[in-house]
Each structure stands twice: as C-alpha cells, then as structure tokens.
C-alpha cells in the first residue's frame, strides 16, 4: 500500500537500527508520547531490537487510558437513560467505570452506539429528534477539531437534541508535567505526529528550550519510529535540544490552521483530571460558554461523581513511565484485557494491553528461565 508499506520496510528498519546503535555511546531514555506509537513499538518489537542503545518508556498519549473515571461514570449514567442515545468511538465501550462499562449498559438495554465520526452522531440526532443524542468527545488535539466541528454544525443547523460529553486533553501540558516530576527519567521525547499535524510544532520549542530536552515529531510506522529515535539519539549525543520533524510528510511547522481555528472557536483550555495522573492545569479542552447548550454536563445537570479507583492499579505510574506494565503486581493477575482494572489494559493503544497481548511470550520465557 502506498505511503504505508515503504514505512514498514524491514531492510530500511535494519539500516536505521544499525545507525542508532553505532551512534549511541550510552543507553538513552526516550519517551514516545502517543499510544499509537506505543502500539507499533510493542507490536513490532522495536524496543526489543533496540537492545542496549535506547530504553523506550511509554507516555500518557492514549486518550482512552487517560480519560478520568468520573467522566466514564458520567458516560455510563447518561447511556443508561432511556431518553438518550449515547454515541462513542469503539474502544471507549469496554473501559471499566466504577461499577460497570458501556458494553454492559448496552446489554442491559441502554442505547449505546459506535460511531466513526462525531458528525455521524450529529446526523443521528437529526434523524431521531425524539431522542437526546450524546457524543463522548474524548481524545487529544487530533479528535478535537472534528468534535468542535460537530458542535459548530449543530448550532448552525439548530439541532437541539445533540450534546457532547467533553473530555479532551492536550499534549504539551502533560509533557511539562512529566518533565517537572522529581522522578522524571525522560531524556528526549518522540512527539505525537498526528497531534502535530493539527497543532504544528511551535508549542514544543519553549519546552525543548526550558528543559533542555530534544523533541522529535515522529510518525507511527516502524521506519518512522526508528528514524525519530535516531534523530533524538543524535541530538542527545551532540548535546543539542531542538524540535525536529521526522514526520515531514504530514506535519508542517504551523500545523493545520483551519483545524486549530475551529477548535479555538468552540473549545477553551480548562484544568483536566487525567486518569492515574491527577489534575493538570489547563491541560484539557472544554466547551466555551457560548456553546454550553451543547455541553452534556450542563444539559443533564450531571452531579459531581466521586469514583474510587481500584487500589491495586498503578496506571498512573505506567502512564508517566515510572514503571513498566509488568512491574505492577496486578498485571496479568487480577488485571487482564478480559477484566481490566485500569484503562491502559483496555485500549489496544494502552501500554498494559500492548504488553499483555504481545509480550507474554517473552515474560513466560523469562519466568521459566528464572524458575
């Protein structure tokens, strides 16, 4: 497939790997921010073949994983109402709330539907005026413009039965929170290519400057990731800390202006709680006052929900790169993809699920070796 197979070329990947190992004079610690990148790294075994040259730690960039429990409980509450059609991207459906999840709500009679675009949810609202259609608007700067567009169109068309449960988060504040942490081990970042396709990469320049940390905007295929890692390792070896762009086929420095404009018209920065991490100031996007009629939290007067996280789950440390998934005592024992305790075990982009799905072989082998 054009634009895809060339970025999965094993020959090219091996050549890049050779250059990484010959460039690195010591083991550098890199974080890939985005869950999509984590998925490719673990699925393709990139971290395995990097060996001693680079340690990859997996960042908080999976929107499913960081959506806070209280927001999932709100979604479940709304989806259980008989007057609501609750719409969501597919992989939110299995994320456990405090007591249940959206798939179980659907089995019990709730009208929960998977959509591929918020505009499909809006169209559903137009077709079913007798129901209130709520869209679970989660994600980073990648999904925010389309969700903003849906709200914008709803107002333009006067669709009164459409609203969104907004739980958007943005990347730079999370990277800053990681860098500020006293336990931080990250020496360079692979920034999320698709987020940068929307936002450009200007906003990473102050971060790179202030924390003296290289940032490489990177794509999602094996060759992209290895090239991004090579660029980051070169910077570290040369003592540079700049923002570089590996993902030139998709990302321009200024990003997608029209998408940014739509986002800013509809959303504004708000403090947002990240599952397992806690509240990060101005790290989320909420609907502006003028669009409050499309805010499900306002429309349904959702009361404060105070959920409790399973105490065993160490999702926060996994999401900030403090521990690897298999360092968590619950991993593979009380927490599996069938019965996830925390969100990183649910989404295929979650670090725990990626390790569980793709690495049990390695873990089984190493535990046999130990025993």
């Amino acid at each position, binding site marked *: 497939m054009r634009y895809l197979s060339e970025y999965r070329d094993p020959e090219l990947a091996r050549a890049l790997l050779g250059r990484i190992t010959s460039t690195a004079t010591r083991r550098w610690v890199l974080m890939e921010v985005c869950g999509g990148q984590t998925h490719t790294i673990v699925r393709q075994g990139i971290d395995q073949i990097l060996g001693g040259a680079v340690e990859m730690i997996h960042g908080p960039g999976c929107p499913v994983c960081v959506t806070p429990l209280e927001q999932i409980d709100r979604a479940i509450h709304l989806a259980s109402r008989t007057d609501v059609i609750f719409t969501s991207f597919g992989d939110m459906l*299995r994320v456990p709330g405090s007591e249940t999840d959206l798939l179980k709500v659907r089995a019990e009679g709730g009208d929960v539907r998977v959509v591929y675009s918020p505009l499909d949810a809006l169209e559903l609202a137009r077709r079913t005026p007798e129901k209130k259609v709520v869209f679970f608007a989660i994600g980073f700067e990648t999904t925010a413009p389309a969700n903003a567009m849906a709200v914008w169109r709803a107002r333009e068309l006067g669709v009164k039965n459409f609203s969104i449960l907004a739980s958007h988060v943005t990347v730079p504040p999370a990277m800053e929170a990681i860098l500020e942490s006293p336990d931080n081990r990250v020496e360079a970042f692979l920034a999320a290519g698709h987020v940068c396709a929307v936002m450009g990469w200007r906003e990473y320049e102050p971060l790179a400057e202030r924390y003296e940390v290289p940032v490489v905007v990177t794509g999602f295929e094996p060759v992209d990731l290895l090239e991004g890692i090579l660029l980051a390792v070169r910077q570290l070896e040369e003592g540079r800390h700049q923002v570089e762009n590996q993902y030139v086929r998709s990302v321009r420095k200024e990003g997608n202006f029209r998408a940014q404009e739509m986002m800013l018209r509809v959303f504004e920065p708000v403090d947002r709680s990240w599952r397992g991490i806690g509240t990060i100031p101005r790290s989320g996007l909420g609907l502006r006052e003028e669009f409050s009629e499309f805010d499900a939290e306002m429309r349904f007067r959702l009361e404060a929900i105070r959920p409790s996280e399973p105490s065993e789950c160490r999702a926060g440390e996994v999401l900030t790169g403090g521990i690897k998934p298999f360092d968590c005592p619950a991993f593979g024992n009380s927490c599996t993809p069938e019965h996830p305790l925390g969100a990183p075990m649910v989404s295929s982009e979650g670090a725990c699920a990626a390790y569980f*799905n793709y690495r*049990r072989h390695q873990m089984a082998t190493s535990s046999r070796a130990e025993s």
Partner: protein
Amino acid sequence: MSPPRAPFQGPVCPTPYGDTDRVQLGHGSGGKMSAALLRDHFLPRFENPVLSELGDAAVVGVDRGELAISTDTFVVSPLEFPGGNIGALAVHGTVNDLAMMGAEPLFLSAGFILEEGLPFEVLDRVVGAMSSAAVEAGVTVVTGDTKVVERGSADGMFINTTGIGLVSPAFRPGPGKAVPGDVVIASGPIGCHGIAIMAVREGLEFEVEIESDTAALHPLVSGLRESVGEAVHVLRDPTRGGVASALNEVALASRVGIEMKEGSLVIPGPVLAACEMLGLDPLYVANEGVLVALVSPDRAGDALASLRSHPLGEEAAIIGHAVEGHPGMVVMRTGIGGNRVVDMLPGDQLPRIC
C-alpha cells in the same frame, strides 16, 4: 371499462391475507399461509425426493461408516452483502465445518426464523442462493423448518443449518493432532468476508469493492486427501475470530507452539486499507472461504501444490510452523525482527480512536 369482478364464492373470512410481498405472522401459523410459504418459496428451490415427501423427518441412506454432524446458526446483518448472502453462508459455513473434519458433506437441514415484514423478494434471493450453493457443494437439503416471529424479534431472518457428512476412515484431521514441525498453510487471501460485511454496515466505499469470500471448501479438502492424505494433521476454517483465533485453538488443543512470519499472509490491498482505516487487525477478521492446514513438513510442498491447483487455493501460502516451544501460544516474527504474541481477543475487535 371496469375491471372484471371475481365471481362470488360465498362468505369468506374478512381477515385479509394482506399484501403478499412480505412475510406475515400468519406464515408461521401452520395453516394455509404456512403451506403456501413452503410451496412458493422453499420447495421449488430445494426440490429433491426426500424433501418432497414432507414427512416429519427425512429418511436417507448412507454407506456404512462414520458420520460427521455439525450445526451452525447464521445471524449475519446485513442479510445481503457483496459476494453473497446469508443463504449461501448458511450452506458454506456448515459444509465447511464438516470438511474440516475430513468429511464429505451429504445432507443439510435448514431451519428459518423469519421476521414479520421480511420482503419475499429478499427471502427468495436468499433461498435461491442457498439452493445454488447446495447444488454446487453437492449437498441435498433434506429437511427444514420455518417459524415466523413478530417484527422486532429477529433481524430479517436467521438460518440454522445442520450438516451430515461421511467420514473416510483413512483421513481424520483434528484440531488436537498438530505436532512440532508441521507447516501451517493458508489456502487463500484473508479478511475478505469480515471487511465486506463491515464495509456495508459502516457505509464505507472503496475504489475496488471487497467481496465476501464465502465458498465451499471441501473440493480443496478432497484435493488434499487425495494428494497427501494422512500428512494433513489439522484443518480449520478461520471464520469468527479469524486466522489468529483458529491457530490459537490449534495451539491449545495440540499443546504445540505456533510461529508465524509477518508478511507471509496474503492480505488483499483493500482489506489492508480498510483495516488501517478502521483500526482492525486482519488476523482477527472473519473468513468464509479460507482454510488453514497443518501438514507434515515432508509433504507441505505437495499440499501447497494441491491447493494451488484449485481456483479457490490459487494464492495458498505457507504462513508458519508448529514448534515445541511456548505450547498453547501463537507468536509472530515481525518484519523487523521482533516478535509478539498473537492472542485470542477477549471480545469483538473494537475500532480504535486514532
């Protein structure tokens, strides 16, 4: 000129039969409407002496030997999709299950649950396809049943088929019979059925329409039986859950590990593109016209040649090996030299967000 009037026939029940282009609850009553349903929509298409007796059970003769029996229920939505419909699927699905046990399919039963309001033109197309598929597969539908349920209680129609096939004593593949060293062969490109269905459900359009691969596989199995016989240890048709789930089942049942090589599977471009767009893994997408065989390494070349000599198996390829290590587990060697576990999914594949 006024239309001719029907001659007066005496008092008739004022309850109208209503429009006759749709299934009504009365068609499940066991009365005249039921008889008409059979007479007009089923019997002409499945015509054979056993069925035409309309007895309470079919009486058939078979040679002495062992029988394979398999039942499967089909609830696919939409009922019609590129490359086939629920009727063709209901034949292929069951005869393929028989074929995977090495059996030659002979007879089918067919049970229909029809939803009130189902247009007869849809029913006729489905039954027509079923009839053609049965003829092509060389099986006879010898008994059947129809029920009609209220609108909303079924999704158009559901079909159950049970198949009976004759097992040849010298050819008995089974899921637990793989041994380390066996070569894993897939008979064709994967992912077509699941993606064809998904494309219709999600309203996706591709430059090239993806058609379901639904087909009867026993001609391929006959070829294998004749060419390599007992060297075939396992046969599976990777339907729901795809190739990944089928190989996991084999690994568990045979207590062997299976190693796959990324890039060895034939995945059609449009399937790959759809999977990229929808965030799905083609390894878990359903197939209805592909078989996976585990064959002794010394006969793998002959098995491959046999499959490739049939139009359904033209693109047959070796996709992996059974190994002694990691019993019960399927591991994929990635293109760039890493490896990963290919597990069964806990539930349905859910589309990813980004």
